[in-house]
């Protein structure tokens, strides 16, 4: 009775304090590739986890080929023929490829695992996918692209009828992406229905016939790919014109603040050079794995570069550990705020004064009173939604946690501010506020490096865009030159 192989209606999923999905719907036709798009934090990943039975929705119904289903766990979804391939495969690194493929449904006779048969079957699946590795290889030794292939082989081994690909191309080179496209085409020909999550328009145009957009945990709409324009799609995803979202102030660009020359670190980046000036925001972008984060972490003394020099206001500076960078006024807002930015179990106030407590301390004794005053002031300055400075950081939403990270930076003496994916997992409202703060900092004459994978953000906020690919700087575009297509081209230029 139904045209749809999979249909979800009125799905609502609530996490403590957040509605991750609010009454969303979704339809998947048999044998189609359906793109699911939306900004970070729009609820796509949560939605996928509802489909695969990892999360249970508070409200809503799910139909598989017209029949209502109710998954109690991932096993049920697997048994029903639904498989998911994640961006970072959740595999068993110590086990062989064949074992990873057959985990949970091993070939067993009389209680004895049939390794020979399993290896043969795995080899067959892998050769279907044109894999360039063996079934007996160790999973942990494979590249991300190869691991994804194993996951796809695993999905095939369970005869999955619906395969969900969660940002599969994010960590792949151009060639690897092409290979993936080929595999997806082949799967579709075999009658498999595919849900494809991606940030890249290129993926969508190349593969999908229909696209569904989520925004702020809500369903916005489903469109035919050949009938919607780029601009309309962006508008559906972002919810407003780009201009309104990015309050980029006109700032007179001053003298050079930070310059890196010939920065190299084995296996991560090579011969990276660039400079940033007072009042300037430079966007540092590229695909995941291009080495952006690694470069700034080396600048800040978190990892050691093999070669290269850092100049601050024209003087060479030696940075050996994070404290050195801070002393010089080079402040990093790290990419993963929950792991690197904050101590989640601690109160906000202590988080804010963690890097600066030594400054207020007298003879090594903490000046708690002063710390409380300063952290209150800083937290109010960035307009954190909190009741007291003793609230644990874990109780805040992503956007407010990011504001605490900003407050932590503001408490230090800054010259160069490096923001690594500052709006990842942040809702649209808080995003605008973070952009506002960024603009204000530029106006006060700080030099800013913004690392981001989100094209609108890079285009909207940067005075200059530096593009990295495979550990090298492949291009630099001024604000007027930069376009989405131009950046993407440079970001994938040297991919093999």
């Amino acid at each position, binding site marked *: 009775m139904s045209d749809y192989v999979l249909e979800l209606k009125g799905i609502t999923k609530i996490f403590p304090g957040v509605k991750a999905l609010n009454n969303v719907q979704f339809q998947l036709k048999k044998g189609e590739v359906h793109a699911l798009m939306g900004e970070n934090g729009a609820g796509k990943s949560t939605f996928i986890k509802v489909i695969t039975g990892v999360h249970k929705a508070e409200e809503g119904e799910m139909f598989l080929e017209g029949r209502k289903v109710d998954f109690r766990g991932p096993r049920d979804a697997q048994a029903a023929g639904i498989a998911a391939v994640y961006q970072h495969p959740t595999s068993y690194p110590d086990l062989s490829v064949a074992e990873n493929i057959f985990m949970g449904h091993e070939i067993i006779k009389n209680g004895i695992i049939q390794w020979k048969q399993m290896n043969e079957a795995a080899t067959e699946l892998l050769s279907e996918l044109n894999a360039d590795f063996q079934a007996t290889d160790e999973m942990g030794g494979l590249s991300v692209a190869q691991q994804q292939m194993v996951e796809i082989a695993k999905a095939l081994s369970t005869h999955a009828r619906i395969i969900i690909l969660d940002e599969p191309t994010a960590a792949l080179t151009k060639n690897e992406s092409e290979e993936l496209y080929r595999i997806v085409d082949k799967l579709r020909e075999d009658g498999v229905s595919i849900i494809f999550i991606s940030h890249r328009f290129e993926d969508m145009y190349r593969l999908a016939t229909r696209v569904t957009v989520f925004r702020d945990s809500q369903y916005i709409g489903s469109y035919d790919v050949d009938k919607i324009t780029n601009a309309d799609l962006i508008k559906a995803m972002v919810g407003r014109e780009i201009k309104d979202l990015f309050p980029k102030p006109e700032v007179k660009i001053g003298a050079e603040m930070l310059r890196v020359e010939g920065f190299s670190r084995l296996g991560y980046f090579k011969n990276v050079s660039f400079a940033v000036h007072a009042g300037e925001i430079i966007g540092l972008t590229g695909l995941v794995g291009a080495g952006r984060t690694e470069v700034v972490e080396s600048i800040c003394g*978190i990892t050691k570069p093999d070669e290269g020099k850092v100049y601050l206001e024209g003087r060479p500076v030696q940075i050996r*550990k*994070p*404290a050195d*960078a*801070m002393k010089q006024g080079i402040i*990093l807002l*790290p990419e993963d705020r929950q*792991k*690197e*930015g*904050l*101590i*989640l*179990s*601690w109160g*906000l*106030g*202590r988080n804010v004064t*963690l*890097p600066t*407590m*030594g400054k207020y*301390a007298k003879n*090594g*004794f*903490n000046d708690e009173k002063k710390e*409380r*005053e300063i*952290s*209150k002031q800083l*937290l*109010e*300055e*960035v*307009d*954190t*939604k*909190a*009741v*007291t*400075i*003793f609230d644990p950081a874990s109780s805040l939403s992503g956007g407010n946690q990011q504001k605490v990270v900003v407050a*932590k930076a503001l408490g230090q003496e800054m010259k160069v501010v490096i923001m690594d994916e500052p709006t990842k997992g942040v809702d649209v409202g808080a995003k605008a506020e973070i952009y506002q703060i960024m603009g*204000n900092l530029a106006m006060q004459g700080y030099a800013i490096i913004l690392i981001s994978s989100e094209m609108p953000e890079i285009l909207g906020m940067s005075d200059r865009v530096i593009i990295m690919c495979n550990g090298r700087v492949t291009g630099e575009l001024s604000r007027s030159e930069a376009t989405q297509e131009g950046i993407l081209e440079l970001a994938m230029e040297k991919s093999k």
Partner: protein
Amino acid sequence: MAGKSGRTIANVPEKSLKKTVLCWEGMLVILFIVINLFCGGISPSYQFANVLREMPKYLTEMFLLFPMAFILILGEIDISVGASVCLAATFTCMASNQGLPFGAVILVCLLTGVACGFINGLILTRFQELPPMIVTLGTQIVFRGIAEIALGSGGSVSLSNADGFRKIAGKAGIVPYILFVVILMAVLYSVVLAKTTFGRSVYAIGSNRMAAYYSGIPVQKIRLIIYTVTGFMAGLAALFLTSVLYGANTTTGNGFEMDAIAMAVFGGISTSGGKGRLFGGILSGFTIICLRIGLGQINMNPQLILIILGILLISAVLIPNISAKLKLKKKAA
């Protein structure tokens, strides 16, 4: 650029009497009193002067509690402390028997401890991938092994001249010197942990090592210092232990690591790092010592006391875990 929404955030800490009494330390104070009443009940000789007289033997382990608390708050563990005590005590006795002046003997003792701790710290900071548990398991065998070699086939050494040690084992009135040293150390370590930048850094590392490192805290330097200080305290413990035992053998310091960990864990210091206060550890330390003295006075089998301590150690971790689980269940229901 004050908050646009005009929202203010409170920065005055809330204090309530109920919270102070109902916290883990509050319970420990009550337990301490109960244990003392219990011991007084079962043993007629459990009196203030007697307890003080018997205390020095047990107090040596308190020296290990203080640094162990730091290590546990870091989220790590040091199993080699007992072996460090053994090695330091062995060298001390031998140095003394060589006729070295007492000052030099003390120096040998403390330096041996420092060396043990420094070796642990060095391995752990140079090879950060290694879990402290397995490294200190390894060094434990080596430290005790060296002591075994030094002690030779007899496996023990006794002091030929204990004059200096008798002075250390002396008393001011009825209070043994060691109690003063323990109290001094307790205050020192508590203040460092609770009030100083160093202490806050230790909590930061134990709560989220990455975030601490990104915030400019010298994680490896702090770890090296703490392990080395642990060794120093093992040396101090060995010094006072020798002044009680007048000798050393291959089993000296056996189980000290468990006692130190048990005292800390029972005092509310979490083994997963970042949580707990030294005050709790000190309270539980004295509670356990009182219990040991009381049970010892009624000639309870020392093995039975070990069993009780083992059960205490496990339940000290188990009970909070279970109650947290129950709370979660209650919340869900």
